[in-house]
């Protein structure tokens, strides 16, 4: 997601016209295999999915395109709670990632000194173990009657979260809080790394200058550091929110049946129920919703040049 600049002018062209026309074709030959791959296995499937979503029929008799748009209305009418749940959980996870990830990125960029390399490795290191195994580890960490639940309980945090409807009684596992916790954990590195990249680019002398102009540390942060880190905030929140909104792993492993997200519905419609038109319609709605939200968000935050 780096800024795209126009290519530098091509090197002086050989004089022979034959060589020149061959050179003109070079980029197309370079692009051909990869772009073809993306067209056939990324773009074309989207078309197939759109077509499947307006088909009717059955597995045995086969499906036909009948422009049956009612599938969309039925899908929304039946599964709008799961859509809302997905957006809510993904939004909360993104917020927690920002709150946790910003200090960590700040620490690496400005305070870590000679430990910077080590801390960066520690941020990336969890990736080396399969994320499913690490997500399962949260079952142990959040287990009923375990130390984490005990501490949260004695600090009366669980009272607050259960009042908010995020937990139930003395449990954390199999509640919305556990799912949000898992999502936050899984996508935190995707928040920290872009934040770190944009913070690291800030000239530390700007902080000194702000201090020289009698800005308190909090003011320096609010007026100098944070605005300059906006590109990192935007790409970090996108890299967290988009995958989190379509995730079904955390809801399945850490939640109960009442925390189903839209990803769970799409997965079971496709792989268990085998109702392909509904599944395709749901997936299409999710895609459209995400693209709309992302476009709006990028416009709003004034960082169009990011993508």
């Amino acid at each position, binding site marked *: 997601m780096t800024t795209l600049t126009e290519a530098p002018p091509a090197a002086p062209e050989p004089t022979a016209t034959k060589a020149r026309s061959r050179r003109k074709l070079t980029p197309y030959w370079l692009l051909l295999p*990869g772009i073809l791959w993306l067209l056939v*296995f990324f773009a*074309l499937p989207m078309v197939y999915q759109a077509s499947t979503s307006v088909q009717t029929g059955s597995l045995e008799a086969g499906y036909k395109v009948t422009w049956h748009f009612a599938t969309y209305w039925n899908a929304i009418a039946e599964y709008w709670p799961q859509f809302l749940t997905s957006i809510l959980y993904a939004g909360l996870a993104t917020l927690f990632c920002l709150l946790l990830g910003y200090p960590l990125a700040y620490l690496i960029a400005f305070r870590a000194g000679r430990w910077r390399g080590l801390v960066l490795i520690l941020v990336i290191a969890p990736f080396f173990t399969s994320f499913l195994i690490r997500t399962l580890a949260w079952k142990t960490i959040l287990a009923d009657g375990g130390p984490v639940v005990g501490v949260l309980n004695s600090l009366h945090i669980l009272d607050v979260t259960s009042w908010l409807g995020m937990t139930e009684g003395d449990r954390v596992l199999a509640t919305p809080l556990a799912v949000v916790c898992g999502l936050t954990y899984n996508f935190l590195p995707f928040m920290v790394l872009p934040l770190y990249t944009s913070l690291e680019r800030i000239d530390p002398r700007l902080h000194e200058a702000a201090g020289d102009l009698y800005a308190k540390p909090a003011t320096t942060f609010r007026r100098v550091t944070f605005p300059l880190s906006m590109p990192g905030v935007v790409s970090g929140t996108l890299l967290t929110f988009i995958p989190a909104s*379509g995730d079904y792993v955390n809801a399945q492993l850490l939640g109960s049946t009442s925390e189903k997200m839209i990803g769970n519905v799409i997965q079971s419609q496709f792989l268990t129920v085998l109702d392909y038109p509904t599944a395709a319609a749901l997936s299409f709605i999710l895609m459209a919703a995400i693209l709309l939200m992302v476009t709006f968000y990028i416009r709003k935050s004034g960082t169009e040049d990011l993508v």
Partner: protein
Amino acid sequence: MALLVWIRRHLVVLAGLLALGFLILPNLVVLVFSFNKPKGRFNYAWQEFSTHAWQDPCGVADLCGSLALSLQIALWATVGATALGTMIAFALVRYRFRARGAINSLIFLPMAMPEVVMAASLLTLFLNMGAQLGFWTILIAHIMFCLSFVVTAVKARVMSMDPRLEEAARDLYAGPVQTFVRVTLPIAAPGIAAGGLLAFALSFDDFIITNFNAGSTVTFPMFVWGSAQRGTPVQINVIGTAMFAVAVICVLAGMLIGNRRKKQAA
């Protein structure tokens, strides 16, 4: 009072370390529980210390087979995505041509799409074509979603390259092929390596897209997913920890070699 002042001054550091602890904690749990001897089928509660899983890491049916399959797919996906992605990156940075914007969007979109959408739509394609789900459909899917990441990594490196180096090579009578092999490729190598490593990691750990397009083929993440329903063998933790250790050792070795080279160059 002094403590309060100290805490206030180091609040950012403390919050950052807390976040770091949050990130590392599950890995520690995975490590500790690889020495567990669980009572039931699930390895979620601590019972007693045992090294039985470490002595017999392949002791569970299909576990090591799925691991080998995942490694194989990740390897081929890396080769495919790195080759195709590097070519695209060079074309994008070095040449001007029509439909640039469209091509950039086509490369950006897979990274901005929830995995489940790509997974579901690819499955509809395979179902419509009547393709046999398995090794090949997984590989096709993995190359597809790794491609964009490779392009991004390589493009960043190629963009920061000094074009005068290649001009100098040409001035010294190096042919186009020689210039590419002796000058361009070595400079772009770190970007290509970074893209390749990213592709390997993404492919090896991918679950959602594989879940949709694997049919009855079981990769390592699919095995872990299935075991979360049937019962989690301790061996999963052993493999998780071992992978972690191997990767950390590789990274540290790479850093040491890099430092030594820097010193030699200085």
